[in-house]
């Protein structure tokens, strides 16, 4: 049966790593062997995972952001134990099987890999690009792979279907004048994942914790405020990407709106299917007709939305 034309695949895959990350409160790194997803996802996309294959409670698969591409065959998920679904997943071990469907959703628009083929596409001829990534706690899961994706974007990553064995790391056509900056905040030190190693992927990194145990004491957006002058310069094209708790997202949306800067947010919602068919996860988006709004599906039309789309 021809499967090569499918953009999304659903199959039983093997767990190669499922380990609690040290110094965290029940946060795990999961690694799954699935060459199709590992080779074809875009940051901001997610997978649906059914961890209890032999019973119906919990019934539904759960959505997890694709955190990282480990290699050509394996991708990673970062998750924190919270409800039935994550507890079930947390009980699995290396060698166990899960049902994985993906890659799903739209992913972040980096404004670079828009054309197909191997042609280099430049975002803008004159301006220096600054990609500003604002993460809150476990929200880092959907943002972590963005730098690598932006660096390797000369390749046609958007045309995902059926293309495998692409070595993205070989491509470095990224303009060295451009910058990728991370602002990473959480409640406390143990929720700043990979705080000692994450700097390797970024040009600048700023940390904050509510309790002051790591980095700036206070809200991460206070640090963004300090540097905003640079991002507002006329010769700079700054674009924001964010994922995190709702109050942080709402405040960042208000700020970028006032600054007139582009912001993409990855929304979190409860999904039944994750495929776009159940219509259980809609969000109101602006629309000129129909009382000013239209429902879009977080799972299929998102989970990444430009902030000015949202109602």
């Amino acid at each position, binding site marked *: 049966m021809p499967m090569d034309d499918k953009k999304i695949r659903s199959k039983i895959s093997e767990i190669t790593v499922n380990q609690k990350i040290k110094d965290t409160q029940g946060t795990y790194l999961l690694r799954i062997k699935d060459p199709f997803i590992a080779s074809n996802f875009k940051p901001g996309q997610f997978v649906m995972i059914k961890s209890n294959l032999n019973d119906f409670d919990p019934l539904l698969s759960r959505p997890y952001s694709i955190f990282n591409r480990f290699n050509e065959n394996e991708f990673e998920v970062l998750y924190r134990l919270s409800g039935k679904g994550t507890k079930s997943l947390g009980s699995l071990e290396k060698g166990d099987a899960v049902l994985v469907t993906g890659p799903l959703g739209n992913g972040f628009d980096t404004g670079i890999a828009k054309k197909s083929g191997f042609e280099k596409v430049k975002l803008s001829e004159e301006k220096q690009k600054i990609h500003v990534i604002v993460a809150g706690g476990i929200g880092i899961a959907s943002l972590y792979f963005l730098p690598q994706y932006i660096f390797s974007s000369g390749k046609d990553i958007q045309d995902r279907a059926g293309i495998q064995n692409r070595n993205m790391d070989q491509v470095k056509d990224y303009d060295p004048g451009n910058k990728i900056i991370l602002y990473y905040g959480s409640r406390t030190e143990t929720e700043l994942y990979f705080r000692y190693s994450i700097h390797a992927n970024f040009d600048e990194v700023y940390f904050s914790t509510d309790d002051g145990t790591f980095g700036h004491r206070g809200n991460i957006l206070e640090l963004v405020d300090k540097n905003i002058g640079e991002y507002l310069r006329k010769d700079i094209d700054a674009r924001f990407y964010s994922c995190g708790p709702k109050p942080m997202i709402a405040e960042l949306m208000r700020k970028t709106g006032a600054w007139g800067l582009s912001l993409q947010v990855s929304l979190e919602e409860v999904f039944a299917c994750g495929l776009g*068919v159940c219509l259980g996860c809609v969000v109101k988006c602006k629309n000129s007709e129909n009382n000013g709004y239209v429902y879009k599906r977080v799972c299929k039309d998102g989970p990444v939305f430009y902030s000015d789309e949202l109602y």
Partner: protein
Amino acid sequence: MSNNTGISLSVKLGKLHLNYPVMPASGTFGYGEEFSDITDFTVFGALVTKGISLEPSNGNEMPRICETPCGLINSIGLENVGFKRFKKEKLPFLKKFNIPVIVNFFGKSIEEYRILASELSGLDGVSALEANISCPNVKEGGRAFGADPEIVYDLVSSVKESSKLPLIVKLSPLVTDISLIAEVAEKAGADILSLINTFPATHIDISTRKFTLNRGYGGLSGPAIKPVALKLVNDVHNAVRIPVIGMGGISLWQDAVEFFLAGASAIAVGTAAFINPNIITEIIAGLKGYLLNNGFKSIYEIIGIASAGK
């Protein structure tokens, strides 16, 4: 899927001929586009659309879904693109697969059902209609059409007069005697019955003391309702002579076998496809294996043969 086993899975539901007796349940398959990116429709007996109304509907406010033990409660609110957009944007895609297209539809009044049935019958590429009669009869105080035998008779006969397409009537489980409703629908001209629709159900968040779903309640689906659905399918099979499409929590090929044994001539899968988008293909393979291993040559040999006693 190889056919060299000599096993026949094709079924005739009145004038509706299906190569395979398994299809998606309305409302869990959109208009086919999303699933076509994931799975092949090769062994789908039919493609069944989300319920269509004359005018588009936004559906309910969030939250719309809530998981319960072995079940899912939804209150989507029949969100749909409406007849005009369905005709222009959705039907051309569905037609491409050369698989029968069953269009599920509903109205706020019998008149709306009649108009919509007539409009849908005029479209090339629609193979059969499925009337959802579980929604509220707005003109008559909001009680479900499907709960009142007289209204069921009027609705079904009115739709039959305005459409020549095979008519499936989808029954609600929330009635005192489903056999009676089934007989009335048959007498009024229904060609096929499908059951069950979801069960009205709710969930309360004890920390906020509020209903979890914005609208307060929704319809329960999933494995939790399967035993009830199976009994109702058997009741209806025993009450009427027209074919029955069975559904309600089917999640494994073994569940499908049970529904055929209870009297279903075809079955539909809904919630289970949310978890496993390839479930229909897997159920077809399981059915074939079951028939082969038990010495049956055709699916017809097992329809309705379950018996009581020792």
